[in-house]
C-alpha cells in the first residue's frame, strides 16, 4: 500500500532520482576528474550547491507547516540556526588544543573572555552522537514549548507570524551576547575536523554534499508520508477550516504542535549540515530577514507541493549568488521583493503548482484527483 502510493507520486520520484544522481555524480566529478577538465566540479561550487540543498531542506520543512497546515512561521530561520549552533559546538570541541591559545578544552573565545572552565551546557558536545541528538532536540523542544503556548491560546494568522519573528529576534539578541557562551558576535568558526576527517579536504566536502542530498531525499519522504496519511488530511483540513476540525472532535492544537515540532527538527538538521559546509555559524543566522527569505523561496517554488519549495530555495539562492557577486549586488533585495510580489500576483501557486496545473489540464480529464494542498484543484499527481 505504502510503496504503491509512493510509486504513484511521479513528481516525487523524479525529484528523488535527481537527488540520488546528484549525490553520486557531483562528488564523483569533484574527486575523480582532474582540475582542468571540463567535467570537473570545483570544491567551492560543490559546497555552494550543498548550501543550497540545506536551504531546500529548510524550505521543505516550512512547507510542511505553512503549505499544509496554514501556519505561516516567520521564525524558521531560528530552528535552522539552533541546529547549526549545536553542530558548531561539536566542531568547536573537535579543535581541541589546536586553537590559537592551545587550550585543550576551552574554545578560543572562552579563553579570550578569561573563562576558566567550560559552561555546563557545553558538556557532551565533544561526543558526536550527543551533538547529533541536540541538533534535533533543541529546535524540537523550543518549537514544542512555543507551539504549546501559542496553539493552545489559539494564536493564529498574523499574530502567530509576528510572535515567530519575535522568537527569532530574541534569539538573535541573546546569541549576540558574549556572556551567553556561544562566541557572541563572531559565532563559532575555525573548525578543523568532523568525525576525524579534515573539514577542508575535498573528500570530506564531497561526503557532506552527498549526505545533504540524501538528507533532503529523506526529508521529502518523511514529509510526503505525513501529508499522505490521514493525519495529513487533518492538517489540510485545519488549514482550510480549523473550527470545523474541532467540531469533528480533533484537537487541532495537537496536530499543529506535531507538525510544527517535526518541521523545526528538520530545520535543525538542515542547519547542522549547513555549518560544516560553510565553516561558520554566527548570530546573523537568526536575523528576522532570513526567516522571511525562506517564505519567499517556498512561495516561489509553490507552497503545498513539497518539491516546489525545495526547487524554489535552490533557484532563488542561485539567483542571489549570481546577483550579489556582480555589479547588481546592491539591488538584490529589490529584486527579491519584486520577485515575491510578482509570484504572489501572477503565480500564486508558485512554479511547481502552476506547472502541475498546466500538465493536469493537458492530461485527459476524469482522472481521480488526490487531496490537494495548493488552494485550488491540482489533480496533477
Amino acid at each position, binding site marked *: 500500500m505504502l510503496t504503491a502510493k509512493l510509486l504513484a507520486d511521479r513528481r516525487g520520484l523524479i525529484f528523488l532520482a535527481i537527488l540520488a544522481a546528484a549525490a553520486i555524480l557531483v562528488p564523483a566529478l569533484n574527486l575523480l576528474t582532474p582540475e582542468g577538465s571540463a567535467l570537473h566540479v570545483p570544491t567551492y561550487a560543490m559546497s555552494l550547491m550543498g548550501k543550497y540543498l540545506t536551504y531546500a531542506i529548510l524550505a521543505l520543512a516550512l512547507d510542511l507547516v505553512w503549505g499544509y497546515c496554514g501556519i505561516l512561521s516567520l521564525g524558521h530561520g531560528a530552528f535552522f540556526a539552533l541546529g547549526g549552533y549545536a553542530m558548531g559546538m561539536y566542531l568547536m570541541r573537535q579543535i581541541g588544543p589546536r586553537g590559537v591559545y592551545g587550550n585543550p578544552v576551552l574554545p578560543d573565545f572562552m579563553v579570550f573572555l578569561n573563562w576558566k572552565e567550560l559552561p555546563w551546557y557545553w558538556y557532551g558536545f565533544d561526543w558526536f552522537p550527543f551533538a547529533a541528538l541536540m541538533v534535533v532536540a533543541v529546535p524540537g523542544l523550543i518549537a514544542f514549548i512555543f507551539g504549546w503556548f501559542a496553539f493552545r491560546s489559539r494564536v493564529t494568522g498574523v499574530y502567530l507570524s509576528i510572535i515567530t519573528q519575535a522568537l527569532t529576534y530574541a534569539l538573535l539578541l541573546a546569541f549576540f551576547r558574549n556572556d551567553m557562551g556561544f562566541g557572541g558576535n563572531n559565532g563559532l568558526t575555525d573548525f578543523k575536523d568532523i568525525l576525524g576527517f579534515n573539514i577542508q579536504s575535498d573528500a570530506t566536502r564531497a561526503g557532506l554534499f552527498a549526505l545533504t542530498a540524501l538528507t533532503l531525499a529523506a526529508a521529502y519522504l518523511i514529509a510526503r*508520508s505525513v501529508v499522505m*496519511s*490521514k493525519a495529513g488530511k487533518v492538517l489540510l483540513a485545519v488549514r482550510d477550516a480549523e473550527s470545523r476540525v474541532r467540531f469533528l472532535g480533533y484537537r487541532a492544537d495537537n496536530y499543529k504542535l506535531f507538525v510544527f515540532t517535526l518541521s523545526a527538527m528538520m530545520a535543525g538538521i538542515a542547519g547542522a549540515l549547513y555549518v560544516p559546509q560553510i565553516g561558520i555559524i554566527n548570530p546573523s543566522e537568526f536575523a528576522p530577514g532570513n526567516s522571511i527569505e525562506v517564505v519567499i523561496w517556498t512561495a516561489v517554488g509553490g507552497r503545498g507541493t513539497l518539491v516546489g519549495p525545495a526547487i524554489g530555495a535552490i533557484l532563488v539562492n542561485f539567483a542571489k549568488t549570481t546577483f550579489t557577486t556582480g555589479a547588481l549586488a546592491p539591488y538584490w533585495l529589490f529584486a527579491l521583493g519584486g520577485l515575491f510580489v510578482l509570484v504572489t500576483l501572477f503565480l500564486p501557486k508558485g512554479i511547481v503548482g502552476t506547472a502541475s496545473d498546466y500538465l493536469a489540464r493537458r492530461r485527459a480529464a476524469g482522472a481521480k484527483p488526490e487531496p490537494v494542498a495548493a488552494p485550488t484543484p491540482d489533480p496533477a499527481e
Partner: protein
Amino acid sequence: MTSVVTPQEPAHLTSSLLYLDDVSVSFDGFRAINKLSLSIQPGEMRAIIGPNGAGKSTMMDIITGKTKPDTGDVLFEGTTDLTRLDEAAIAHLGIGRKFQKPTVFENQTVEDNIHLALKSDRTVLKNLFWGISADEQAKIDKILVTIRLAADRDRLAGDLSHGQKQWLEIGMLLAQDPKLLLVDEPAAGMTDAETIETAKLLKEIARDHSVIVVEHDMTFIRDLGVKVTVLHEGSVLAEGPLDVVSADERVIEVYLGR
C-alpha cells in the same frame, strides 16, 4: 413557557438527552440568549423556528462549546455539564453539528471529507498511518449512498453545488455517528426539489438518531412533522405541534407583525 419557574424534576431531567435550563448569554450588552430552557428526549427530532436573530445559531454555539453561556445549565445525558468542555470534547461525547453556512473541506474529495469525519481515534499518532480498513470503507460507502453522493465520491468538495455541500455536511455528521445531531438551516439556498429531498434525508436519519433542526422554511418543517419550538429574542415563545404553534397569536405576531 419561559415565565414558568421550572421546578426541579429529577426523573425528567435524567431522562433528557439534552437539557438547557435558564441559559443566558450577552454580546457587548446585547442578550442574544435570554433565560432559555429546552429539553430534548432521546430519539426525538425537534424543529426550532424563529425569525432571523432569534438566537438559534447561538443556541447551537452554546451546546457545542463554541460560546460559553453567562449563566444557566447545559446538561447532556442528564449529568455531563457541557459548559465546562471544549468543542473537541463535546464532539467526543456524541454531539455533531452542521453549520448554517456549509463548511466542508473544499480542497479534499467527497470521500476524504467523510473519512475525516468517520468516528475513530482522533489522536495524531494513530492517524499517521495510511490506508483505510474494510469496515471503514463500508461505512463510508453506505453514507455516500444515504446522502446521494455516491457518484461524486472522487470530486473535490469545493466543486459540489450548494445543496450537495449541505448533504455532504450532513453525511459528515452521520459519519461521526453522534447521539445528537444539530442541523442549522439545512435547506437554506436549496431548490424546492432539493429541499424535499433534504427533509426525506433527515427523516431517515432521525430513525436512529436524536436531531435538532433549525429552519425558516415552513413547508420544510411541515414535511418533517415533528414537535416545534419557536424561539424569539433568545427565549422560547411557544412549543408544540406545528399546527398548534402556528395558530398561537404571539407567534403570528412575531412572524407577521413586524
